[in-house]
């Protein structure tokens, strides 16, 4: 096997491997090994591999899996849920895995469900991912026809059914407890925590929720072992490879599977090819619209959760957006807050009313109608809507880029207010 556990089965520009092709290439071997290992050994390996949640939160996967009550202790139905509701602006990694390696996804689900002793799995896919849904449904049928799903899989006594659910939309569905509400047929409103979803999730039963990329790492951990997976990484605190992406006016926007901990500057220069002629980078968001700006003097940061956290931001999805000198940072933040205001589920007042307020203040500043006091008002909101101020993490996520923008782009904010216009306005309306 190669050193690319996530993309080894992917041939760009080709249809994904069907089940026969996938097995010929080594697929579903890890599933057999996993069944022979048993749940506890799998969970131990995933923990030792230092796999961290790739949906953006970075929670240690092994610890999450340990949190599912043992089947003997709680003889009730339990669920594995794949969070394939990729909607964080700037993120496009899970779509590749779902569309181009559906059997890797399913093998990861089977192993994860076996480890949690979950007999029902849902793959919760955003509704716009039509091609991904189509390919997943086909792959599930192929796996079932081969006896890898259904009753008593390969004589193990373990049974599993996978449902592919196409969502009705809304960013908030990616919040795990809101996702449960959606699957149960309610408005996708989050629930209070604790209890943790591993003890009380979907229909109040133990539910293990993992991101697409996280589960796609698991087959290779089982097959090659935790030490091998750790060795792939350039980081001491986290194992594996990761799908890093770059968008913005770089020469080669795209996705690459690279060792965890690859420096941001290396991704931008060697893989994305640096900036297009005539453009310079001004800042980057390392992992989606809810991560704080990183400034060029910190572009040497290693792209892992701990290092990016120490640099004042968060790895998030690891899909990087580059802001160049011809696009306006205030306009960018306005776009981001417009997104969060629209996607607030409306359940709690600070988020429902606070985010539109923030959005309107930014719109005014961008339109040249801002007042100096607006900057204090925005800063105040980053506190009010910060961690602990709202029911779930949507608004705190919305405040992270704003807080960093007020810090790093203070001069640009003040310029909008004193000159009563956006100095970069015209460029935003043109084609890139």
């Amino acid at each position: 096997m190669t050193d690319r556990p996530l993309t080894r089965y992917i041939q760009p520009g080709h249809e994904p491997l069907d089940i026969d092709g996938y097995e010929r290439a080594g697929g579903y071997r890890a599933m057999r090994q996993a069944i022979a290992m048993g749940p506890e050994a799998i969970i131990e390996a995933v923990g030792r591999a230092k796999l961290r949640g790739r949906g953006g939160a970075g929670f240690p996967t092994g610890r999450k899996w340990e949190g599912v009550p043992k089947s003997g202790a709680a003889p009730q139905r339990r669920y594995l849920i794949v969070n394939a509701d990729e909607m964080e602006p700037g993120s496009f990694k899970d779509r590749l895995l779902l569309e181009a390696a559906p059997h890797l996804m399913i093998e990861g689900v089977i192993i994860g469900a076996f480890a949690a002793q979950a007999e029902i799995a849902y793959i919760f896919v955003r509704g716009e991912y039509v091609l991904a849904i189509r390919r997943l449904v086909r792959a599930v049928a192929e796996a079932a026809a081969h006896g890898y799903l259904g009753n008593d899989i390969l004589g193990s006594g373990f049974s599993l059914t996978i449902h592919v659910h196409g969502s009705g939309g809304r960013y908030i569905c990616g919040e795990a407890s809101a996702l449960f509400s959606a699957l149960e047929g309610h408005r996708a409103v989050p629930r209070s925590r604790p209890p943790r979803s591993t003890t009380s999730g979907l229909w109040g039963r133990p539910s293990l929720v993992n991101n697409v990329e996280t589960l796609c790492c698991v087959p290779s951990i089982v097959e090659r072992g935790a030490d091998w997976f750790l060795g792939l990484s350039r980081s001491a605190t986290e194992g594996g490879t990761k799908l890093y992406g770059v968008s913005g006016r770089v020469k080669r926007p795209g996705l690459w599977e690279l060792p965890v901990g690859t420096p941001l500057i290396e991704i931008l220069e060697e893989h994305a090819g640096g900036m297009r002629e005539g453009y310079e980078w001004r800042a980057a968001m390392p992992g989606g619209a809810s991560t704080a700006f990183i400034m060029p003097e910190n572009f040497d940061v290693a792209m892992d959760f701990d290092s990016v956290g120490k640099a004042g931001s968060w790895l998030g999805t690891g899909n990087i957006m580059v802001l160049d000198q011809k696009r306006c940072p205030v306009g960018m933040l306005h776009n981001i807050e417009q997104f969060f205001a629209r996607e607030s589920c409306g359940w709690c007042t600070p988020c429902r009313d606070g985010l539109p307020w923030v959005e309107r203040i930014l719109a005014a500043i961008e339109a040249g109608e801002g007042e100096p006091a607006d900057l204090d008002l925005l800063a105040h909101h980053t506190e009010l809507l910060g961690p602990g101020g709202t029911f779930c993490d949507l608004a705190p996520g919305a405040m992270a880029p704003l807080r960093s923008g007020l810090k790093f782009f203070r001069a640009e904010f003040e310029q909008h207010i004193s000159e009563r216009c956006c100095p970069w306005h015209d460029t935003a309306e043109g084609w890139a």
Partner: protein
Amino acid sequence: MSTVEQNLTDLPLDAALREAIVAVTRECETPRAAGIDALKLVQKRFGFVSDRHLAELAELLGMTPAELDGVATFYNLIFRRPVGRHVILLCDSVACWMMGGTAARLQLRERLGIEPGQTTADGLFTLLPIVCLGCCDHAPAMMIDDDLHGDLDAARLDAILGHHGWRR
């Protein structure tokens, strides 16, 4: 939207569609869990979910019409009003904003005479904003019906519209 189709949305669901919906509810742990799938089945046939159909679905799902409407109106991919023959979902999130998403919106306004949220007078297109489509390395991007289109520029956008029946 032709009057014929509008009338159909005021009539009861046909037996085959009702049967398909009941089959989905049987696969789910509770009937209401089939709500989104059921709404989508109706929408696939009629383009949107009418009041009449919503009430009928609610009964099949063991919900009140108001409860089901609360669900239906929460999710942006469920349409409670008629839409055009083709639905354009134009990404207005930040990666597309950086790469010319605004230019795409302005060109659509110029060509079709509609803003996001509106339908053309001939009923051919409905334009809706959508959150990041996960196509950021090929921004700006949009979907028309089930198909994703990236790397939009002025010529490509016109060509895609033309392919869907737009004439200058």
